[in-house]
């Protein structure tokens, strides 16, 4: 089972965890991305996330399907937030349940690593003295 969301609303971490729990599962791995107060030593004021929503939903669904093919998982959840996020806020939650923990860990890591490479969502770092779209330039 797959649950995908791209939303401007705050992500509900306890609800995400409840959703992936199941009586067949022995282990759940949850990755929570948080807005860090600095990047490469430079203070960050806030982040802004923009998504091409229908395509992001599609790419996230593909990733979840790939994970379900590669590992014996029960449930896979990927939620990503858009809009302006202050330091400490949560842009992404990925949660995976499985009978055994190795599959949950491996799948969760695959999902966040691949999400960052393929899902059409863009992050702008806002500094005291300007702003930068992350990864845009070489």
């Amino acid at each position: 089972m797959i649950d995908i969301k791209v939303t401007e609303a705050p992500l509900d971490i306890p609800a995400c965890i409840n959703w992936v729990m199941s009586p067949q599962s022995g282990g759940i791995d949850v990755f929570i991305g948080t807005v860090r107060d600095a990047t490469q030593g430079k203070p960050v004021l806030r982040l802004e996330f923009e998504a091409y929503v229908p395509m992001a939903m599609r790419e996230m669904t593909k990733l979840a399907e790939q994970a379900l093919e590669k590992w014996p998982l029960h449930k896979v959840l990927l939620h990503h937030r858009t809009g302006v996020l202050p330091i400490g806020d949560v842009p992404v939650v990925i949660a995976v349940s499985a009978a055994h923990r190795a599959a949950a860990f491996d799948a969760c890591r695959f999902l966040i690593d691949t999400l960052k490479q393929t899902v059409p969502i863009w992050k702008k770092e806002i500094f005291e003295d300007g702003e930068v779209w992350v990864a845009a330039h070489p």
Partner: protein
Amino acid sequence: MKVNVLAFGIAKDIFGKPAVAVEVEENTTVATLKSALEAQFPRLKQLSSFMIAVNSEYAQADNVLQARDEIAIIPPVSGG
């Protein structure tokens, strides 16, 4: 034919708006559209890379565009 190209992230900043209309030949490929966009917006050449999505899927260079396709320019992604 005219195709409408949606833009996100830095591409929206480069276009100065969330979409541009581009005049292209019938049966234009994705590769030709990319060149046309680079000619019209030279700052695109400074990006690490950019992709074209057609109907919410990453498109290959030789994909042929249709007038009714939803086309988007996808600069390097950085979610998560």
